[in-house]
């Protein structure tokens, strides 16, 4: 038997003897899939896009993050943890250029 004939015979044999659509089996599988579904595996590269998602559904993760940021900022402000930085900045701003350039007088300790 030549190749083409064999191919046609093979195709007809497989298609003829292929199982017909079994509705009962399809329904059984669909019913099993109706049960509570397992957790999805989130892609790691998608994590930043969660913050950029404007659909706000569900909203609670974003609202929780915003609330936590507000709380942290409030605590830092109330406790004065940021004041050390401010003082360091103001003392540097008040420095006279002369004090940086000229040495103090040996007798009086004053600068020109």
């Amino acid at each position: 038997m030549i190749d083409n004939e064999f191919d046609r015979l093979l195709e007809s044999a497989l298609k003829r003897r292929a199982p017909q659509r079994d509705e009962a089996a399809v329904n059984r599988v669909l019913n099993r899939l109706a049960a509570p579904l397992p957790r999805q595996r989130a892609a790691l590269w998608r994590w930043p896009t969660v913050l950029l998602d404007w659909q706000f559904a569900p909203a609670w993760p974003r609202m929780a993050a915003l609330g936590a940021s507000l709380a942290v900022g409030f605590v830092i402000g109330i406790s004065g943890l940021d004041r050390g930085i401010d003082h360091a900045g103001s003392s540097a701003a008040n420095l006279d250029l002369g004090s940086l350039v000229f040495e103090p007088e040996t007798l009086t300790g004053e600068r020109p």
Partner: protein
Amino acid sequence: MDDSDEALMARVARGDERAFRELARRHVPAMLGLARRILGNAADAEDVAQEAMLRVWTQAPRWQPLAALRTWLSRVVVNLCLDRKRKAQWVELEAAGEIKDPAPLAGDSAETAERERLLAAAVAELPARQRAAIVLSYTEGMSNAQVAEVLDTTVSAVETLLVRGKQNLRRALAQVIEE
């Protein structure tokens, strides 16, 4: 609303169960048929189809539309079938009680029917990957490139599988074919 496979998968990736169930209604019959043709066992085919759709659900957030969903699903089903074959003994198509086409073709002869029956039985005896390649190519109507994508191999490897599969089938049917 766009109800293409890609659009539904995008919704499934966001946890939309209704979109998932729509995808399942759309693809489970074909996946079930493919699994039955490869495994020759109806019960195992149902397990495979269910497992394949569950993988669609759990991996949807990571799925990228580099290939058609149908191709990806076929690959999942074939891999699950090959895993099952490695673990369990295969059942002959006849013993599995498959639903045969009750309507004979016009002009069909007893000799042709017998050849087809023997050929289908010989396909069941093929090594797993040759059988998968033969089923995907001749029953699902996939091109060699599509079969290569499903089997995660090269086109030349698929051609080799098909050639060797057909050689094995010819050898098995040598006496009947040459009559």
